């Protein structure tokens, strides 16, 4: 087993990996940028190393610095988390060549899945269904027009190197194509340094279903069931659940088999996720493979009872999978909500600021993954994800109820979050019925809907808000702390000023 792991990431995922290291008795080495000097991950790790200025390109994306540091501090392995360098095949190759173990798949597997167009080609050859569209990149608007007409509108423009909705545009008619094509190319170039774009048929009202797989270096492959991540804003997931209430046992068999085929097609080892779009008739199409740990891995850990991060580390260290497919059962229904510093009333624009107060929910089967606490700064340099709340219950409706209560218990001051928005999603009829698609938010949860929803908010709460704000207005200097009772015990002599 490894002696020391360098964690090339920040925020909640770095904290998550530090915990796994602690539990396995491995020394955790964190890296931090200027802005993250006293960030939670930098405080919790056994060692913390400064790697550069706040801009990601100067620090968390600086391949040379990270590899040099790993050698210098004698780290046996690097865990990349998600985002940043996690799916960068050339970085992984450099790590491999430096004699350090990369906790994840081989650079070849990542390379094969890295370009969306070549991954589509590979899947097609291996009998994994793909969305109809081009398998080569499109460079000119003429070519785009020709292909779009062949495929038939509506279509979707996507960045070959893409992810996270960057460089992705929906086009419903030819006259919209030119603007959308240029915008997609611009976004793709800025986000990935590559303006290759391809065209897919737009599947209307699809669900986003993905399968977690894991494999060791001995060719043992397992799936850990599916997750449904159809609640998305700006093509980024906000609420995820496992299992999907839409998938029946027969579909699950076909889906997980396709996922395992996809993983085998690129000789995959370690944890990975195969994303699919499912149409109303339970046909599913390969979307992409995420060759890393996912943000939403806690829901799978809940329903499978498997610690994915520890398993990742063991696999990288050359151990066999600690379980077989037959050991796995779906243990319940889990939901995760991503709490973001953002403004749902204003196109979900990210919000920056300092967390002035932070109280987390707690209770049976409520799990929090976080990278922040009181006094943490949410800066413009990084993703505005504050924390993830995950819950599990036996039945989906009870899990939703548990989540709703957990969100109500969450207190955070200093910046606005999407907490109310998340609660609104949980109360939405389509969400509750399970019959929702990836268009749920733009169809049912727009600011216009919020205005209507505001009127059904219990009057009690409005009165509460009115009283407290009136009170704060009249007594702006009123910060007198709570009187603590002065009972006599041995601590009373200690007075904290």
């Amino acid at each position, binding site marked *: 087993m490894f002696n020391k792991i360098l964690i090339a990431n920040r925020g909640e995922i770095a904290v998550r990996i530090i915990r796994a290291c602690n539990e396995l008795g491995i020394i955790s080495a964190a890296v931090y940028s200027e802005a993250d000097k006293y960030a939670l991950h930098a405080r919790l790790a056994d060692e913390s190393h400064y790697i550069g200025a706040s801009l990601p390109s100067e620090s968390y994306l600086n391949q040379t610095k990270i590899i040099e540091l790993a050698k210098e501090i004698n780290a046996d392995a690097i865990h990349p988390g998600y985002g940043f360098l996690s799916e960068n095949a050339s970085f992984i190759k450099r790590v491999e060549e430096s004699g350090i173990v990369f906790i994840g798949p081989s650079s070849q597997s990542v390379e094969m899945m890295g370009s969306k167009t070549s991954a589509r080609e590979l899947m097609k050859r291996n009998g994994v269904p793909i969305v109809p569209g081009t398998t080569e990149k499109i460079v000119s608007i003429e070519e785009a027009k020709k292909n779009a007409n062949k495929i038939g509108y509506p279509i979707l423009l996507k960045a070959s190197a893409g992810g996270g909705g960057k460089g992705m545009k929906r086009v419903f008619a030819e006259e919209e194509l030119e603007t959308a094509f240029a915008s997609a190319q611009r976004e793709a170039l*800025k986000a990935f340094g590559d303006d290759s774009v391809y065209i897919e048929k737009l599947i209307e009202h699809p669900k986003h279903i993905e399968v977690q797989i894991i494999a060791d270096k001995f060719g043992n492959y397992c799936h850990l069931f599916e997750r449904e991540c159809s609640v998305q804003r700006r093509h980024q997931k906000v609420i995820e659940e496992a299992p999907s209430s839409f998938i029946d046992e027969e579909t699950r068999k076909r889906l997980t088999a396709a996922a395992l085929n996809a993983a085998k097609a690129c000789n995959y080892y370690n944890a990975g996720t195969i994303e699919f779009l499912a149409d109303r008739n339970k046909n599913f199409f390969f979307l992409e493979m995420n060759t890393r740990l996912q943000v939403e891995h806690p829901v799978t850990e809940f329903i499978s009872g498997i610690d994915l991060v520890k398993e990742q580390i063991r696999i990288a260290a050359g151990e066999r999978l600690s379980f077989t497919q037959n050991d796995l059962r779906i243990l319940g229904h889990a939901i995760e909500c991503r709490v973001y510093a953002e403004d749902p009333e204003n196109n979900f624009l990210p919000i920056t600021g300092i967390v002035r107060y932070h109280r987390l929910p707690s209770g049976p089967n409520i799990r929090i993954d976080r990278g922040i606490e009181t006094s943490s700064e949410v800066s413009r340099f990084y993703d505005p994800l504050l924390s993830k709340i995950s819950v599990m219950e036996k039945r989906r409706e009870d899990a939703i109820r548990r989540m709703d209560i957990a969100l109500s218990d969450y207190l955070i001051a200093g910046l606005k979050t999407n907490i109310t928005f998340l609660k609104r999603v949980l109360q939405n009829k389509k969400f509750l019925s399970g019959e929702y698609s990836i268009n749920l938010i733009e169809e049912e949860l727009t600011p216009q809907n919020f205005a209507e929803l505001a009127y059904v908010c219990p009057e009690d709460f409005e009165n509460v808000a009115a009283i407290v704000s009136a009170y704060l207005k009249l007594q702006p200097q009123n910060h007198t702390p709570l009187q603590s009772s002065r009972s006599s015990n041995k601590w009373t002599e200690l007075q904290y000023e």
Partner: protein
Amino acid sequence: MNEVFVTVNGKEKSVEFVNNDKVIIDGKAYTYDISCENEFHHFLRLNKKTFDITKVAKDKNKIVILTEGNYFECNVQTKLEKNTETILAHSEKSQHKEDVSSPMPGMVLKILKKENEEIVIGEPVLILEAMKMENEVTSPYSGFLKKIYVSENTPVEKGTKLFRIE
């Protein structure tokens, strides 16, 4: 003297503290008690129920409250402020004139409208690039686009004036 007007969810409420333990909201009396753990965390006991409240942000007359997972943007005015405003509103024709500022640091990528163009609420005025994503900045009011303060391909800070709607 202790009467305050609070607009919450588009409804105006009159809040009057009469004693240390009594508050009247729109003519209805409640027993209350408020304590604060710190500047940002308060407890309000209203009749028998206790609410945990966070003061998310405060700006002169605007206070943002989070309680039980609900955000409330409260506009708060004392009686005096309200009276002054009423007088002012009569002296000049009250119209929506407002500068719209950038909600985020970013880069103005494209300006979609021209000055003096008529704008409907929710219509995109410009595209702001932030977090590597293109974001449409829409008009919060209907009216005329009186002035555009920025030009394309210029970086803006959070709070930089972008345009004016009248």
